[in-house]
């Protein structure tokens, strides 16, 4: 009930519907990676997926934000079934990539924001290495670029009040990690794949 309300509200406020330009919705395991400009990104991207895929798709979220208060933790854990990770683990034994891999298992897809933090411009910043390690460990999983449009205008960094502009979620064609590809090259290519969806 609450879940449907949230999905409906998110679609209403952001007007965001998914445009599948590079692939079709499918329950196979995928990692959706997107630019990150707003707290709404997780909710909007997740809501834009068809209802059959939502229970299978787990957003990866920062524990320091989504785990900070009880309502946020409730949203993250109960509604999105999010994977909460430490952005800056102090314990060397904690490995975020391993946590994400474990959370995926052989059933779930992930939503990740490889910049690691929200950016105040629509153009994504440099991608952190997580996406590369995930791609290396799970070459069977499709890596799907997603461009989130206008979300930074709807609820920009540092603002509490949303403005109901029209947002967009554009989902592109899956990319793969080439066998001989260096980490930096792959991350640059992944970022370019997200950016390329800007004007499609």
């Amino acid at each position, binding site marked *: 009930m609450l879940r449907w309300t949230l999905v409906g509200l998110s679609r209403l406020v952001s007007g965001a*519907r998914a445009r599948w330009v590079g692939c079709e919705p499918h329950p196979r395991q995928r990692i959706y990676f997107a630019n990150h400009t707003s707290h709404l990104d997780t909710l909007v991207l997740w809501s834009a997926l068809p209802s059959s895929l939502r229970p299978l798709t787990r957003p990866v979220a920062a524990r320091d934000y989504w785990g900070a208060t009880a309502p946020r933790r409730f949203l993250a854990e109960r509604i999105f079934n999010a994977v909460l990770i430490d952005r800056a683990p102090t314990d060397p034994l904690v490995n975020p990539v391993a946590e994400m891999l474990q959370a995926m298992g052989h059933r779930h897809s992930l939503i990740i924001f490889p910049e690691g933090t929200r950016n105040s411009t629509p153009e994504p910043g440099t991608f952190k290495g997580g996406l590369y390690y995930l791609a290396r460990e799970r070459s069977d999983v499709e890596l799907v670029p997603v461009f989130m449009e*206008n979300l930074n205008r709807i609820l*920009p960094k540092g603002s509490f009040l949303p403005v109901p502009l029209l947002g967009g979620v554009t989902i592109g064609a899956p990319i793969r990690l080439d066998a001989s590809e260096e980490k930096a090259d792959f991350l640059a290519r992944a970022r370019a794949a997200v950016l390329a969806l800007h004007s499609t």
Partner: protein
Amino acid sequence: MKTLVIPLVLLGTIVPAVAPADGPARWLLEGVLGLLVVASVTGWVMSRRVTTEAGRKTVQNMNVRIRAWWFMAALFGLALFIGRIGTTVLSGLISFLALREFITLTPTRPGDHQSLFWVFFVITPLQYYLVAVEWYGLAIIMIPVYAFMFIPIRSALQGDVKQFLERTAKVQWGLMVCVYCVSHAPMLLSLDIPGYGGQNAKLLFWFVLVTQLSDVLQWIWGKSLGKHKIAPQVSPNKTWEGFIGGIASATVIGAALWWATPFTPAQAGAMALVVTLIGFGGGLVMSAIKRDRGVKDYGTVIEGHGGVMDRIDSLCFAAPVFFHLTRYWFTT
């Protein structure tokens, strides 16, 4: 298939609403519904017959328009029955959707965020509140005077000076066109016209019908006879043939529907002429804005969204003029 299904569903919702009406209101609605049924069937037949790529585009465009008119007919037909407050709320909703498209298309900066919040959630509802409570004196100056001062103050407090004048002007412009102008349509319902008491909804319906018919007739005349372009840089579809044919035929129809208005046939014709001319200007201005932003339709800014602005651009400009002319000449 959408070409036929949506009209059928809407028809199902309109007919029960029309049934209890009688006299001119009913004739108007029945006429419009008949016209739309014919249009939808024609569009459907054409979509099956069309063979060339260009032809397919034209027919597709036509069918999108027909669908939009079904929604408008349902909306403004409803206005005949839901009364002044209901119509005001519906118009407010249209303003909201139009403004959303307008601002989405207009680049703003993070420094405008707070102002935009006020624009959407305070100023727009306030304008329609003033219309609803018939506070005429404030309703006609709130946005042009007070919002005009408030928005730049709020943006200045935010501290971002880059392109300040341009940004402020854009937000103010969006408010004027999408909210202030549109709000004159429900204000028609508050006019006290001698001998026409309680019938103002028909006047609103007549006004919307004439502006919309003018749009479609200009399009049809232009498609069939159009050769000489009026402003090719702004809107390659607008031709002198379409303009003259469309305005003339819409004026004739407006005059022929005088019985729904407080006007004589000649007055109705003159009103229709003014309204369609201003409406044409509105369409031209909106096209210029769209060209400048590099899009063809507001509806394509974000795929899958209606393009409310594409359908009401002429109505925006015509509404205040029609309101003032009626108020000046026909009220006590």
